[in-house]
């Protein structure tokens, strides 16, 4: 544990061991240290919010847990199983699903097809059966389509069932991405800024959806969010990162009182504002404003491919 406040609020464990436990995670891109010695626990069935200013390393944490990044040091324990690194596919098999900061839906496919891809790991038929449309192919297709339809209903996406996702509004695309993750029936759901760039009502319905997932399906959720109101409303547990370190860890109220958190927040708010003025690719600090995020985060994705050597600012954009 990095800070006294964190160890102080070492949240009381239930009968089970924590579902997720990070220990001494470090990660650096070239010269930029994204994460330095981060450790925290996530209990089963809780909603844990990871907050912090831009460049605090929030997204990097999610990317490490879901196997997209490989940490330079430290380990992740999921469901009692400790590991230093895993491939994305393996984490999926373990029951971890996620959404991305810059929407990562399959734009060329319909909403239903997107949800169907979420069930891919449970699909019990060989490609040959599917090609010849024989054997288990039909049964599997029927089962998974039904499952996907349940998710579709759960998220009230029926009106868009066959619409190409690329043509949907931003908020809906986020919803579809959530649906794809849900279709995998995960134990742990990682949400990277699920409400970025949404208007008030979209945020409202999204937080309701998240709460429903947590309550009705009992899914454990770790989410990154900038909107403090949302965070305080829906999360049971808040972890605050700053410059790649944990500066706060506890219940929303505990965190609210925590002095270092406030300092980190106010301090870095200023610094973040500067980076923003420096680089177009920089992300937005809270409260996020829809148009601005749409403007900034969408190109940020293309910048990732175009820019060979990302400047610190643009890395910050994605963390």
């Amino acid at each position, binding site marked *: 544990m990095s800070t006294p406040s964190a160890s102080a609020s070492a949240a009381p464990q239930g009968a089970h061991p924590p579902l997720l436990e990070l220990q001494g995670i470090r990660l650096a891109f070239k010269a930029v240290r994204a994460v330095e010695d981060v450790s925290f626990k996530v209990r089963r069935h809780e909603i844990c919010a990871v907050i912090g200013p831009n460049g605090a390393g929030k997204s990097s944490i999610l990317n490490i847990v*879901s*196997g*997209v990044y490989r940490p330079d040091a430290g380990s992740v324990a999921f469901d009692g199983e400790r590991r230093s690194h895993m*491939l*994305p*596919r393996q*984490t*999926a*098999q373990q029951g971890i*699903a*996620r959404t*991305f900061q810059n929407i*990562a*839906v*399959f*734009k*060329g*496919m319909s909403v*239903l*097809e997107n949800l*169907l*891809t*979420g069930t*891919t*790991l449970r*699909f019990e*038929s060989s*490609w040959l059966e*599917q*090609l*010849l*449309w024989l054997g288990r*192919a*039909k049964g*599997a*297709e*029927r089962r*998974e*389509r*039904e499952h996907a*339809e349940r998710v579709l209903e759960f998220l009230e996406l029926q009106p868009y069932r066959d619409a190409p996702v690329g043509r949907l509004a931003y908020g809906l695309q986020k919803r579809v991405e959530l649906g*794809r*993750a849900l279709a*995998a029936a995960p134990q742990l759901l990682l949400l990277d800024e699920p409400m970025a760039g949404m208007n008030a009502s979209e945020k409202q319905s999204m937080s309701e959806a998240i709460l429903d997932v947590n309550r009705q399906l009992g899914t454990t959720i770790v989410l990154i969010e900038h909107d403090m109101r949302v965070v305080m409303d829906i999360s049971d547990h808040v972890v605050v990162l700053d410059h790649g370190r944990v500066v706060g860890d506890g219940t929303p109220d505990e965190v609210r009182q925590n002095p270092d958190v406030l300092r980190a927040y106010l301090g870095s708010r200023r610094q973040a504002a500067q980076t923003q003025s420096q680089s177009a690719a920089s992300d937005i600090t809270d409260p996020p404003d829809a148009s601005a995020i749409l403007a900034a985060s969408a190109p940020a994705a293309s910048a990732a491919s175009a820019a060979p050597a990302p400047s610190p600012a643009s890395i910050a954009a994605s963390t």
Partner: protein
Amino acid sequence: MLYSEAGQLSTDYLHGARRFRLRQERLEVLAVLVIAFVAVPAFADDYWLTAILIPFSILALAGLGLNLLTGFAGQLSVGSAGFMAVGAYTAYNVLLRLPGVPLLLAFALGGVAAAIAGVLAGLPSLRIKGFYLVVTTLAAQFFIEWVFTRFRWFSNDNASGLVSVPRLVVLGRDASSPLGRYLLTLSVVVALTALALNIPKSELGRRWMAVRDMDTAAAVIGIPVLRTKLLAFAISSFYCGVAGALWGFTYLGTFDPRAWELSRSFQILFIIIIGGMGSIMGSFLGSAFMLLVPIAMSHAGSALLGGSVDQGAIENYKKILFGLLIVAFLIREPGGLARLLRRARDRARIWPLRSW
């Protein structure tokens, strides 16, 4: 095409996985098949059969193969012609060296050999993406060309390097007549197309499209990206291989490696760009376009300029025209002819309304 969907209620999730969802679409397809199998043989003359319809359906099949890889799985390849050559030479040597093997089986083996070649060419896609694949598939193209030119064994050690295919016998019946070759080609193409139509609505196709649209996300939801890509290479190349075998056997009859040079690969790539990436039917539209436009041009040319028309010039204008078309389609309608058709259909479906 003024559809009425009344009463077509889907009561089973498999209806959503149908090749053609609406009754009307199924009827249209049926009509096309009847025309192809009954009307055409009744009316078409040998020129149309051998010079247009056979190459049309074969190129459509090859285009379909490439479309599976590029249009659905998002892996660009300029080695299609190479894989076609593998199919043709394999089929030839199977028939030559393993007497008693039925023709269709030889074609299938040609496809399998091509599939293997395809997987090998696809292996680098483990490490590399996008147009880097152009390089590896080009490598495959050149290597294959070289192998078949260099090692005469494949062409039965005959000095000219030309090989002539044996009589075409299917199920004991001779299929060497123009009509026979047409029907043989058509049957193979239709059968393989029917199979391909299963792909977009199946998990197989969804995995491909997922990898195409966003491979990181695909990996995160548990899709084995490399295996998926390789499978795409295998199946795609199988189609190209069979197409190659048909090209050699039912279209050319006598061939050497030059039948499958790089330009053929580009031709097939153009077929799917113009016809429509990610659309099975697009491959057919593109192929028809690719074959008919040049013919129309030379006819128009000789009609306008009288007999004295320089074929070289025609060639140039053909090139320019296709180049312009490629660019135009990529800019205006990446979905190609298939998308244009679909659009027209959807508009007709809700006319006079603009949206519904």
